[in-house]
Protein backbone atom coordinates (compact mmCIF):
# COMPACT_ATOMS: atom_id res chain seq x y z
CA UNK A 1 0.00 0.00 0.00
CA UNK A 2 1.21 3.50 -0.82
CA UNK A 3 2.00 5.16 2.55
CA UNK A 4 1.04 8.58 1.19
CA UNK A 5 -2.35 7.30 0.19
CA UNK A 6 -2.87 5.71 3.56
CA UNK A 7 -1.94 8.92 5.32
CA UNK A 8 -4.46 10.85 3.21
CA UNK A 9 -7.09 8.28 4.08
CA UNK A 10 -6.29 8.67 7.78
CA UNK A 11 -6.55 12.46 7.43
CA UNK A 12 -9.92 12.09 5.69
CA UNK A 13 -11.21 9.98 8.54
CA UNK A 14 -10.01 12.63 10.95
CA UNK A 15 -11.79 15.37 9.04
CA UNK A 16 -15.00 13.35 8.93
CA UNK A 17 -14.84 12.47 12.61
CA UNK A 18 -13.95 15.95 13.77
CA UNK A 19 -16.50 17.62 11.46
CA UNK A 20 -19.11 15.19 12.69
CA UNK A 21 -18.38 16.27 16.24
CA UNK A 22 -19.05 19.86 15.16
CA UNK A 23 -15.52 21.13 15.84
CA UNK A 24 -14.23 24.32 14.23
CA UNK A 25 -11.65 24.56 11.49
CA UNK A 26 -9.11 25.97 13.94
CA UNK A 27 -9.40 22.95 16.19
CA UNK A 28 -9.07 20.78 13.13
CA UNK A 29 -5.78 22.35 12.09
CA UNK A 30 -4.40 22.04 15.61
CA UNK A 31 -5.34 18.39 15.67
CA UNK A 32 -3.87 17.49 12.30
CA UNK A 33 -1.85 14.23 12.43
CA UNK A 34 1.32 16.00 11.28
CA UNK A 35 1.33 17.88 14.59
CA UNK A 36 1.18 14.63 16.60
CA UNK A 37 3.53 14.53 19.54
CA UNK A 38 6.81 12.76 18.62
CA UNK A 39 7.00 9.23 19.98
CA UNK A 40 9.94 7.31 21.41
CA UNK A 41 10.48 3.75 20.23
CA UNK A 42 12.79 1.24 21.90
CA UNK A 43 14.81 -1.39 20.06
CA UNK A 44 16.24 -3.99 22.41
CA UNK A 45 19.55 -5.56 21.48
CA UNK A 46 19.78 -9.06 22.92
CA UNK A 47 21.12 -12.45 21.85
CA UNK A 48 22.93 -10.75 18.95
CA UNK A 49 19.75 -9.40 17.36
CA UNK A 50 17.53 -6.31 17.25
CA UNK A 51 13.97 -6.55 18.59
CA UNK A 52 11.93 -5.45 16.82
CA UNK A 53 14.15 -5.87 13.79
CA UNK A 54 11.73 -3.72 11.77
CA UNK A 55 10.13 -0.59 13.14
CA UNK A 56 7.77 1.99 11.63
CA UNK A 57 8.10 5.57 12.86
CA UNK A 58 7.16 9.12 11.86
CA UNK A 59 9.55 12.03 11.24
CA UNK A 60 10.36 13.62 14.60
CA UNK A 61 10.14 10.30 16.48
CA UNK A 62 13.12 9.08 18.47
CA UNK A 63 14.48 5.55 18.39
CA UNK A 64 16.44 4.28 21.39
CA UNK A 65 18.61 1.19 21.12
CA UNK A 66 19.31 -0.50 24.45
CA UNK A 67 22.03 -3.16 24.59
CA UNK A 68 20.83 -5.88 26.96
CA UNK A 69 23.29 -8.42 25.57
CA UNK A 70 26.48 -9.68 27.19
CA UNK A 71 28.73 -8.28 24.47
CA UNK A 72 29.20 -4.93 22.66
CA UNK A 73 27.25 -4.13 19.49
CA UNK A 74 26.57 -1.15 17.22
CA UNK A 75 23.52 0.17 15.37
CA UNK A 76 25.02 1.67 12.24
CA UNK A 77 23.00 3.00 9.32
CA UNK A 78 24.05 1.84 5.89
CA UNK A 79 25.20 4.83 3.88
CA UNK A 80 25.40 7.16 6.89
CA UNK A 81 22.57 8.73 8.88
CA UNK A 82 23.49 7.44 12.29
CA UNK A 83 26.12 5.35 14.04
CA UNK A 84 25.88 4.40 17.70
CA UNK A 85 29.60 3.52 17.73
CA UNK A 86 30.47 0.83 20.31
CA UNK A 87 27.50 0.12 22.59
CA UNK A 88 28.85 -1.74 25.60
CA UNK A 89 26.57 -4.13 27.49
CA UNK A 90 23.98 -1.96 29.23
CA UNK A 91 24.60 1.13 27.07
CA UNK A 92 22.02 2.88 24.90
CA UNK A 93 21.90 5.21 21.88
CA UNK A 94 19.22 7.65 20.68
CA UNK A 95 18.51 8.87 17.19
CA UNK A 96 15.77 11.27 16.15
CA UNK A 97 14.41 10.53 12.70
CA UNK A 98 14.18 13.58 10.43
CA UNK A 99 13.88 12.54 6.80
CA UNK A 100 10.93 10.56 5.49
CA UNK A 101 13.08 7.77 4.11
CA UNK A 102 13.59 4.21 5.27
CA UNK A 103 16.91 3.32 6.89
CA UNK A 104 18.63 -0.05 6.89
CA UNK A 105 21.14 -0.56 9.66
CA UNK A 106 23.41 -3.29 10.98
CA UNK A 107 25.97 -4.15 13.65
CA UNK A 108 29.52 -3.46 12.53
CA UNK A 109 30.78 -6.40 14.59
CA UNK A 110 28.15 -9.03 13.82
CA UNK A 111 27.12 -9.26 10.17
CA UNK A 112 24.11 -11.44 11.03
CA UNK A 113 22.48 -8.50 12.87
CA UNK A 114 20.25 -6.44 10.59
CA UNK A 115 17.50 -3.93 11.28
CA UNK A 116 15.32 -1.46 9.43
CA UNK A 117 13.41 1.68 10.26
CA UNK A 118 10.48 2.51 7.97
CA UNK A 119 9.50 6.17 8.07
CA UNK A 120 5.98 7.19 7.02
Amino acid at each position, binding site marked *: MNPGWRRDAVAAVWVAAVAGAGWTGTALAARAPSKAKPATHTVTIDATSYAPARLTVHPGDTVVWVNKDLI*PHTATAKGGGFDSKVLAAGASFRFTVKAKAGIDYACLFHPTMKGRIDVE
Partner: protein
Amino acid sequence: MTHTALIIAAALAVPAAPRAVEAAQPVNDAQIASIVVTANQVDIDAGKLASERAAKPEVKKFGELMVTDHTGVNKAAVDLATKLKVTPQDNPTSQSLKAGGDKNVAHLKTLKGAAFDKAYVDQEVAYHTAVLDAVDKTLIPNASNAELKALLVKVRPAFVAHLEHAKQIQATLGGAH
Protein backbone atom coordinates in the same frame (compact mmCIF):
# COMPACT_ATOMS: atom_id res chain seq x y z
CA MET B 1 30.26 -36.29 25.12
CA THR B 2 32.54 -38.58 23.18
CA HIS B 3 30.98 -37.15 20.07
CA THR B 4 31.73 -33.56 21.13
CA ALA B 5 35.29 -34.32 22.14
CA LEU B 6 35.96 -36.00 18.84
CA ILE B 7 34.41 -33.27 16.74
CA ILE B 8 36.29 -30.50 18.49
CA ALA B 9 39.55 -32.43 18.48
CA ALA B 10 39.10 -33.04 14.77
CA ALA B 11 38.35 -29.38 14.11
CA LEU B 12 41.48 -28.38 15.95
CA ALA B 13 43.45 -30.91 13.91
CA VAL B 14 45.16 -32.29 16.97
CA PRO B 15 46.45 -35.78 16.32
CA ALA B 16 47.59 -36.15 19.92
CA ALA B 17 44.29 -35.03 21.45
CA PRO B 18 42.78 -37.59 23.77
CA ARG B 19 40.14 -39.55 21.90
CA ALA B 20 37.64 -40.19 24.61
CA VAL B 21 36.67 -43.82 24.36
CA GLU B 22 34.81 -44.39 27.60
CA ALA B 23 31.09 -45.03 27.38
CA ALA B 24 29.18 -41.97 26.21
CA GLN B 25 27.44 -40.27 29.07
CA PRO B 26 25.50 -37.03 29.27
CA VAL B 27 27.45 -34.05 30.56
CA ASN B 28 26.27 -32.44 33.78
CA ASP B 29 26.00 -28.71 34.46
CA ALA B 30 29.39 -28.52 36.20
CA GLN B 31 31.01 -30.11 33.14
CA ILE B 32 29.09 -27.86 30.77
CA ALA B 33 30.32 -24.84 32.73
CA SER B 34 33.88 -26.08 32.32
CA ILE B 35 33.42 -26.67 28.58
CA VAL B 36 31.94 -23.18 28.09
CA VAL B 37 34.70 -21.41 30.03
CA THR B 38 37.44 -23.43 28.31
CA ALA B 39 35.97 -22.95 24.83
CA ASN B 40 35.82 -19.19 25.35
CA GLN B 41 39.33 -19.05 26.80
CA VAL B 42 40.78 -20.98 23.87
CA ASP B 43 39.33 -18.44 21.46
CA ILE B 44 40.45 -15.51 23.61
CA ASP B 45 44.03 -16.84 23.55
CA ALA B 46 44.04 -17.21 19.76
CA GLY B 47 42.34 -13.81 19.38
CA LYS B 48 45.00 -12.11 21.50
CA LEU B 49 47.70 -13.55 19.30
CA ALA B 50 45.88 -12.43 16.14
CA SER B 51 45.38 -8.92 17.52
CA GLU B 52 49.17 -8.72 17.89
CA ARG B 53 50.39 -10.64 14.86
CA ALA B 54 47.82 -10.48 12.08
CA ALA B 55 49.00 -8.77 8.90
CA LYS B 56 45.64 -7.59 7.55
CA PRO B 57 43.70 -5.01 9.56
CA GLU B 58 40.42 -6.95 9.28
CA VAL B 59 42.06 -10.07 10.70
CA LYS B 60 43.56 -8.03 13.54
CA LYS B 61 40.12 -6.50 14.23
CA PHE B 62 38.48 -9.90 14.15
CA GLY B 63 41.00 -11.13 16.74
CA GLU B 64 40.17 -8.14 18.94
CA LEU B 65 36.45 -8.86 18.52
CA MET B 66 36.97 -12.48 19.61
CA VAL B 67 38.79 -11.30 22.74
CA THR B 68 36.01 -8.82 23.58
CA ASP B 69 33.04 -11.09 22.86
CA HIS B 70 34.36 -14.28 24.41
CA THR B 71 35.53 -12.35 27.47
CA GLY B 72 31.98 -10.99 27.81
CA VAL B 73 30.47 -14.45 27.49
CA ASN B 74 32.97 -15.92 29.94
CA LYS B 75 32.24 -13.25 32.53
CA ALA B 76 28.54 -14.10 32.32
CA ALA B 77 29.29 -17.84 32.55
CA VAL B 78 31.53 -17.42 35.58
CA ASP B 79 29.01 -15.07 37.26
CA LEU B 80 26.24 -17.62 36.70
CA ALA B 81 28.35 -20.56 37.95
CA THR B 82 29.19 -18.54 41.07
CA LYS B 83 25.55 -17.65 41.63
CA LEU B 84 24.46 -21.26 41.19
CA LYS B 85 27.36 -22.46 43.35
CA VAL B 86 28.53 -24.72 40.52
CA THR B 87 32.24 -25.47 40.39
CA PRO B 88 33.29 -26.09 36.76
CA GLN B 89 34.34 -29.73 36.49
CA ASP B 90 37.15 -30.84 34.21
CA ASN B 91 36.14 -33.48 31.66
CA PRO B 92 37.44 -35.05 28.42
CA THR B 93 35.82 -32.39 26.23
CA SER B 94 37.23 -29.44 28.15
CA GLN B 95 40.62 -31.20 28.30
CA SER B 96 40.74 -31.78 24.56
CA LEU B 97 39.64 -28.19 23.96
CA LYS B 98 42.46 -26.92 26.12
CA ALA B 99 45.06 -29.22 24.53
CA GLY B 100 43.86 -28.34 21.03
CA GLY B 101 43.84 -24.62 21.79
CA ASP B 102 47.38 -24.69 23.18
CA LYS B 103 48.59 -26.62 20.16
CA ASN B 104 46.88 -24.18 17.79
CA VAL B 105 48.45 -21.15 19.46
CA ALA B 106 51.87 -22.84 19.36
CA HIS B 107 51.41 -23.52 15.65
CA LEU B 108 50.23 -19.98 14.91
CA LYS B 109 53.30 -18.59 16.69
CA THR B 110 55.49 -20.21 14.02
CA LEU B 111 53.69 -18.30 11.24
CA LYS B 112 53.87 -14.74 9.94
CA GLY B 113 52.09 -12.40 7.55
CA ALA B 114 49.58 -13.85 5.08
CA ALA B 115 50.30 -17.40 6.26
CA PHE B 116 49.39 -16.44 9.82
CA ASP B 117 46.20 -14.69 8.71
CA LYS B 118 45.06 -17.66 6.64
CA ALA B 119 45.83 -20.24 9.32
CA TYR B 120 44.12 -18.18 12.02
CA VAL B 121 40.96 -17.45 10.02
CA ASP B 122 40.68 -21.04 8.71
CA GLN B 123 40.97 -22.21 12.29
CA GLU B 124 38.30 -19.76 13.49
CA VAL B 125 35.88 -21.04 10.85
CA ALA B 126 36.51 -24.66 11.88
CA TYR B 127 36.44 -23.86 15.58
CA HIS B 128 33.16 -21.93 15.56
CA THR B 129 31.57 -24.64 13.41
CA ALA B 130 32.63 -27.28 15.96
CA VAL B 131 31.59 -25.20 18.96
CA LEU B 132 28.16 -24.52 17.47
CA ASP B 133 27.74 -28.23 16.85
CA ALA B 134 28.63 -28.93 20.48
CA VAL B 135 26.28 -26.19 21.71
CA ASP B 136 23.39 -27.63 19.70
CA LYS B 137 23.98 -31.35 20.15
CA THR B 138 25.54 -31.60 23.59
CA LEU B 139 25.48 -28.48 25.72
CA ILE B 140 21.94 -27.10 25.29
CA PRO B 141 20.24 -30.55 25.31
CA ASN B 142 22.11 -31.61 28.47
CA ALA B 143 21.92 -28.39 30.50
CA SER B 144 19.54 -29.08 33.36
CA ASN B 145 19.58 -25.67 35.07
CA ALA B 146 17.20 -23.30 33.27
CA GLU B 147 19.51 -20.28 33.65
CA LEU B 148 22.48 -22.18 32.26
CA LYS B 149 20.39 -23.33 29.30
CA ALA B 150 19.14 -19.75 28.79
CA LEU B 151 22.71 -18.43 28.79
CA LEU B 152 23.70 -20.93 26.09
CA VAL B 153 20.68 -19.97 24.00
CA LYS B 154 21.46 -16.27 24.45
CA VAL B 155 25.10 -16.53 23.34
CA ARG B 156 24.55 -18.98 20.47
CA PRO B 157 23.67 -16.26 17.88
CA ALA B 158 26.95 -14.48 18.64
CA PHE B 159 28.84 -17.66 17.67
CA VAL B 160 26.81 -17.84 14.45
CA ALA B 161 27.75 -14.20 13.74
CA HIS B 162 31.42 -14.97 14.43
CA LEU B 163 31.32 -17.91 12.03
CA GLU B 164 29.70 -15.77 9.34
CA HIS B 165 32.21 -12.98 9.90
CA ALA B 166 35.16 -15.41 9.78
CA LYS B 167 33.84 -16.92 6.53
CA GLN B 168 33.57 -13.44 4.97
CA ILE B 169 37.18 -12.71 5.87
CA GLN B 170 38.24 -16.17 4.70
CA ALA B 171 36.73 -15.44 1.27
CA THR B 172 38.77 -12.20 0.92
CA LEU B 173 41.98 -13.96 2.01
CA GLY B 174 41.40 -16.73 -0.49
CA GLY B 175 41.31 -14.14 -3.28
CA ALA B 176 44.57 -12.56 -2.17
CA HIS B 177 46.70 -15.57 -2.98
